[in-house]
């Protein structure tokens, strides 16, 4: 193991933070494409030098980048995301039908086995895939067209497909999540999809138990147990033990069950992390204390992790794609804030230190353990 590379997407460019396996001393790169918003960057599990990045701006729209050398150089790849067939309508904020319109790529999920294959979750919500290293993109239209699409509505941040989970044990199975429609699953490699929201309860929609309409913020799993899903919903931390067929709330003793991120320890499938945020109006940590909460029981019983994190006057947010874990032992945990800090814990969350303090607002954090 030669080191760790943390890929940080921010409001004003991308940054790459590097360290050795000790994860104590960090080097922060110069801004990559400074001044432009990077929603997400992620490296290929099959080739760590292959990184995909989503850049977007009001001026120039969506631009996609690919690096083949670990982020030293970049080339622009295809940015045409064309919905397949009839675009149809979803609900607008006022409840009226609104045509699907591509706005941006929120999340990139490289294939587990092929560096040239990458999935893109986009706004307005749809899933695309490229099999030519990002040059061209094709939609999985069966998701948008499976039936409930006309009832989907945007969350405050837009109608974004923000989570893509690829099942390592079953290439045909994917789980995705959309704000504010819910979670969906395919078992046939993306041809057909169905909602998997049984057990979610959301008081902010007319039928709190509806099959779609839930504002899911993020979903995570441990690759060794892809049927066990953990969800941070707008309110409520949820768990499913049957690949989303049913969900149970595991918010337990959290100081707030609202938040955006959720992630799973690399070596302990029942150890999960969230960052509680006070809502519905404030969207910063309760009591001005930035605390990661860890459950070693897959939810319900949580402990506050505070060592090294600001415990007064802290009013940042941690956005949905801004937490990641590395595969080293002990497991490293990373998250970024809207205040421009990136915190790392090299010991599974017991202690934390800022590895970058003054970046632009952080939108996403991913980590690669380098061979």
């Amino acid at each position, binding site marked *: 193991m030669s080191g760790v590379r943390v890929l940080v997407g921010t*409001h*004003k460019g991308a940054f790459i933070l590097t360290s050795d396996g000790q994860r104590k001393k960090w080097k922060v790169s110069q801004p990559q*494409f400074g*001044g*432009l918003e990077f929603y997400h960057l992620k490296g290929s599990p099959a080739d760590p030098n292959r990184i995909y990045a989503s850049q977007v*701006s*009001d*001026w*120039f*729209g*969506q*631009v996609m980048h690919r690096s083949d050398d670990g982020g030293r150089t970049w080339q*622009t790849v295809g*940015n*045409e995301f*064309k919905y397949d067939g009839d675009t149809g309508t979803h609900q607008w904020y006022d409840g009226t039908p609104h045509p699907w319109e591509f706005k941006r790529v929120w999340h990139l999920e490289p294939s587990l086995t092929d560096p040239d294959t990458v999935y893109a979750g986009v706004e307005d919500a749809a899933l695309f895939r490229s099999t030519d290293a990002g040059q061209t993109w094709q939609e999985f239209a069966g998701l948008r067209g499976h039936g409930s699409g006309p009832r989907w509505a945007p969350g405050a941040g837009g109608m974004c497909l923000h989570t893509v989970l690829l099942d390592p044990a079953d290439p045909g199975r994917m789980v995705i999540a959309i704000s504010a429609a819910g979670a969906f699953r395919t078992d046939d490699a993306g041809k057909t999809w169905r909602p998997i929201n049984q057990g979610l309860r959301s008081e902010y929609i007319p039928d709190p138990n509806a099959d779609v309409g839930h504002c899911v913020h993020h979903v995570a799993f441990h690759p060794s147990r892809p049927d066990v899903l953990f969800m941070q919903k707008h309110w409520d931390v949820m768990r499913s033990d049957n690949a989303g067929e049913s969900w149970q709330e595991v918010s337990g003793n959290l100081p707030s069950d609202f938040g955006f991120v959720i992630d799973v320890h690399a070596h302990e499938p029942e150890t999960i992390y969230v960052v509680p945020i006070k809502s519905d109006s404030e969207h910063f940590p309760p009591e001005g204390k930035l605390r990661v909460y860890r459950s070693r029981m897959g939810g319900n019983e949580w402990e506050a992790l505070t060592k090294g994190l600001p415990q007064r006057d802290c009013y940042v947010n941690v956005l949905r794609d801004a937490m990641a874990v590395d595969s080293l032992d002990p497991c490293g945990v990373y998250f970024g804030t809207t205040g421009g800090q990136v915190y790392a814990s090299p010991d599974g969350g017991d202690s934390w230190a800022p590895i970058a303090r003054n970046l632009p607002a952080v939108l996403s954090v991913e980590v690669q353990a380098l061979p």
Partner: protein
Amino acid sequence: MIRVVLPHHLRNLAQVEAEVTLQVDGPITQRTVLDALEARYPMLRGTIRDHDTQIRRPYLRLFACQEDLSHDPPDTPLPEAVASGKEPLLIIGAIAGGWD
């Protein structure tokens, strides 16, 4: 040759200096110049005009000869000074700072 000045971020994307020159055959219009620009620098496709509709992105403007040509139909001939290469076509990112 047609001269085109790109905004900072598009210069970075295309990896060019402030001004580029293009050979454009036939009538010199917004459409033919942007077609030539995108053919020479394919990484700019979708950043100035929508892929499908070819409509100019709302935060970009097209200036030349002290005139705002942004709202001219795309097949309107550009000023003779642009067609002759005396003056550049300026692609301008709107000065819209937003919240930061």
